[in-house]
């Protein structure tokens, strides 16, 4: 089935078409979300939300971009929303603990190891993912799309909705920030 035909069937509410969309792009959505939220259960939750959103709003899809680009856009938006809400909850729990209203400990998540990283590079990737987590949103999205999903600059620009030079600049700044962050981690470990 061609993409245009699939879109028409999706707009007609065909369940078979929805199943095809999910099975064709579930790994794309899951892997992108995993790179951003850095937790397997949360990434699965976001993936589910992305497809529910896609099913609900397919009527508004104008076909100006590829279906995969549209799914990438929803994934990035939902993942960043999730990260913001997690940050808010963490801050709220911390404030509550200051006033003695919350006795539960605020536990930092365990080190994240992406399942697709080569065995010999796993240890080093933990530090890199931690540093990615500290990047500003736009830089984080551009870096994950480029390095975790392997998109080229033009594809990243289509997902983020910006120009290719802007993506190049975002990636350049992201790499500089990551290097700075990693250097600090190294020095702290050596102290």
């Amino acid at each position: 089935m061609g993409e245009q035909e699939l879109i028409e069937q999706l707009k007609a509410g065909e369940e078979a078409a929805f199943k095809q969309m999910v099975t064709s792009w579930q790994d794309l959505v899951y892997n992108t979300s995993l790179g951003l939220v850095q937790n397997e259960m949360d990434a699965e939750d976001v993936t589910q939300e992305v497809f529910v959103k896609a099913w609900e709003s397919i009527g508004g899809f104008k076909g100006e971009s590829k279906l995969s680009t549209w799914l990438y856009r929803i994934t990035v938006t939902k993942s960043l929303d999730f990260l913001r809400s997690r940050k808010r909850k963490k801050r709220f729990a911390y404030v509550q603990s200051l006033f003695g209203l919350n006795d539960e400990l605020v536990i930092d998540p365990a080190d994240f190891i992406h399942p697709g990283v080569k065995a010999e590079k796993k240890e080093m990737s933990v530090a890199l993912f931690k540093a990615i987590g500290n990047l500003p949103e736009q830089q984080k999205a551009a870096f994950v799309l480029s390095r975790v999903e392997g998109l080229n600059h033009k594809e990243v620009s289509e997902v983020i909705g910006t120009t290719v030079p802007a993506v190049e600049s975002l990636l350049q700044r992201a790499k500089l920030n990551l290097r700075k962050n990693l250097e600090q981690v190294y020095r702290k470990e050596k102290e």
Partner: protein
Amino acid sequence: MKSNNNNMENQAENWVNQAMESLDGLRRASANPFLYTRILSRVQEANSRWEKMARFISKPSFAIAATALFLALNMWAIFQKSEKATPSEAEMEQLFATEYSASNMQYSLVDLSEVK
């Protein structure tokens, strides 16, 4: 001393480079094989009447409209009550008369110049 510092710098740079290259050759992570079933049940859940109603009620526009309606009803009730509670002039005179005739107190006018 200087060579020690240089050595440290080199080690740090090597470590950072290794970390930066740790995503080279990364394979795409695979989603749970039961993902479609879970998504489908979520879609069906989202389409249920109660869920739609809950989503409608939780919209900020609904909350604002409900609050405005509540305040308007309260204001209306307060105005209604205050209109009824204000007695007319005749009612005031009646109330005054009742108040004083019900009392056993004797009232007489005293000429203050005679008090001296």
